[in-house]
């Protein structure tokens, strides 16, 4: 069941084979294989501690995998750090725990590591602030680009994290629960945004506990459980109940037993 989908003939953007990652006795990611194609939206669902965030961290290089292979457009690639992941896999990620620097203003957070400069040396502050203003407004956030991120409300911080992905959208955008803290009206903006990215031929990997959202935008849905892929479903005529059933088709007692 967890073998990659073989129905497509084109080379996947990213092929992941037998990824493993343990923390001491915990097998957080346990032999996961998946193909990600250009222009598709994959929804990743699963119970808490299923290993979703850890799985993503292996792609972005935030954690280093214990074993496994990654192929970018068929070419094997080693991910040694977030830096190498960005360069080699062209990934942009929105982290669940909001990787923002609280002491820096929004615009510096948005452009961190991708600053626009004069003469390659000096910050083009004006332009970065203007760009930030634009993208922050696009997401309906109220904050000013020069506000320190540490003083923003929970939801506005999340919007800043999303805005970053918008500014530098790459071939694959990974979002780990991007909408957890934001208000309903803004969630629609984010879903619209995901469709827009897809329309541009980009791929999106979306982790969310908001199954409605997954059902709205995903092309395929990957169900994670206990560090493994339990099921991969094409998102056609799937109901919320089906999905919940796919996620939790064991009794809670069985789950507890399975921890070790």
């Amino acid at each position, binding site marked *: 069941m967890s073998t990659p989908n073989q129905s497509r003939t084109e080379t996947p953007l990213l092929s992941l084979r037998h990824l493993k990652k343990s923390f001491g006795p915990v097998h957080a990611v346990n032999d996961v294989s998946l193909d990600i194609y250009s222009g598709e939206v994959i929804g990743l669902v699963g119970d808490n501690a299923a290993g979703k965030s850890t799985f993503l961290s292996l792609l972005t290089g935030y954690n280093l995998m214990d074993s496994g292979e990654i192929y970018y457009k068929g070419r094997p690639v080693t991910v040694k750090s977030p830096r190498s992941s960005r360069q080699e896999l062209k990934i942009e990620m929105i982290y669940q725990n909001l990787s923002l620097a609280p002491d820096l203003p929004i615009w510096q957070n948005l452009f961190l590591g991708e600053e626009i*400069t004069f003469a390659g040396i000096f910050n083009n502050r004006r332009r970065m602030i203007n760009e930030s203003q634009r993208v922050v407004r696009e997401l309906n956030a109220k904050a000013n680009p020069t506000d320190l991120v540490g003083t923003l409300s929970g939801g506005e911080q999340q919007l800043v994290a999303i805005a970053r992905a918008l500014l530098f959208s790459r071939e694959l955008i990974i979002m780990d629960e991007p909408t957890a803290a934001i208000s309903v009206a803004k969630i629609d903006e984010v879903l619209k945004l995901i469709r827009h990215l897809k329309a541009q031929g980009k791929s999106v990997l979306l982790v969310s506990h908001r199954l409605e959202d997954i059902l709205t935008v995903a092309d395929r849905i990957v169900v994670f459980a206990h560090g493994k892929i339990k099921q991969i479903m094409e998102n056609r005529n799937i109901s919320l109940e089906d999905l919940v059933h796919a996620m939790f088709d064991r009794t809670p007692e069985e789950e507890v037993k399975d921890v070790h």
Partner: protein
Amino acid sequence: MSINQQLFGEPGSVKRPIVFLIIALIISTLIAPSFLSGRNIDALLVSSSFLIVLTVGESLVIMTGMIDLGVQSIMASAGMFVAFLTVLHGFPAITALPLTIIAGAVVGWIVGLLVTKGRIPSFIVTLGTYWGLKGVALLFNGGNYISPNNGLFNFSSLANNTLGISNLLLITFFIIIIGQIMLSATPLGIWLKSLGSNEAAAKTVGLRIDSLKILVFIISGILAALAGIMIAAWQGSIYPTTGSGYSLQAIAAVILGGIPFSGGRGSVIGAAIGALIIGLIDDLIVLLGLPSLYEYIFVAVILVIAGFQARSRGVVK
């Protein structure tokens, strides 16, 4: 609180140490009228210049949340090294000065490697340079000092005046400006702050964390080496024990200048003013001629008063 804030500016802003410095200058003039004489100001600035140069480097290290205890020993050994090259071995200044600066950079690079690749806390590694380079400074002339008796200090014109201003001051001023511009007007400045503010965030966006850390230690090493050259030129002789106590003072200056220990915020100018405030305290002691038994207590009281402007609204550690 609000008046205090209006006058002094936000915690962590450059305004604070500047306003504090101005008030301190006014009070100093009132209690010791000779304070404001051109000669005294000049003496104060020049003799603070070494500490300021060290402090600029230290401020960048602390901005990233690390610490450099070794600056005073880098300074001392660099001073001995440049004198060793020029005075004892007749190198021309034009080669000796760059070699010394490079040596400072190499020290910083090794420190950076040990911290990043070796994963040893910077406090321990730089306590290592603090001790080790103290020892190295002794080796250049078998524990002895180097003075004009041993040969020619061919780089001592560094301590001369240009248009009535000491070259040492010009160099110091230049370094503060460059440091501040780097911090507030270039991507590098943003990167360093982001490291202190949230290293995980800096890592996720793909910044080269390790290289950045190594870089700040290299800068700190270079500036400390420069301070060593400056102090050798100024003294016209150099001792292996030069500059003891400067590391602690440089760190204190950084904190007084509004950079928290955890990094992420603050300015180079603020830190430089912090160093000037420390120099000012020493100067006042000389001016006031306090009974020497009370000197230390005076230093403590002024320091704590100065600390009030470094107070922050958030977590205080």
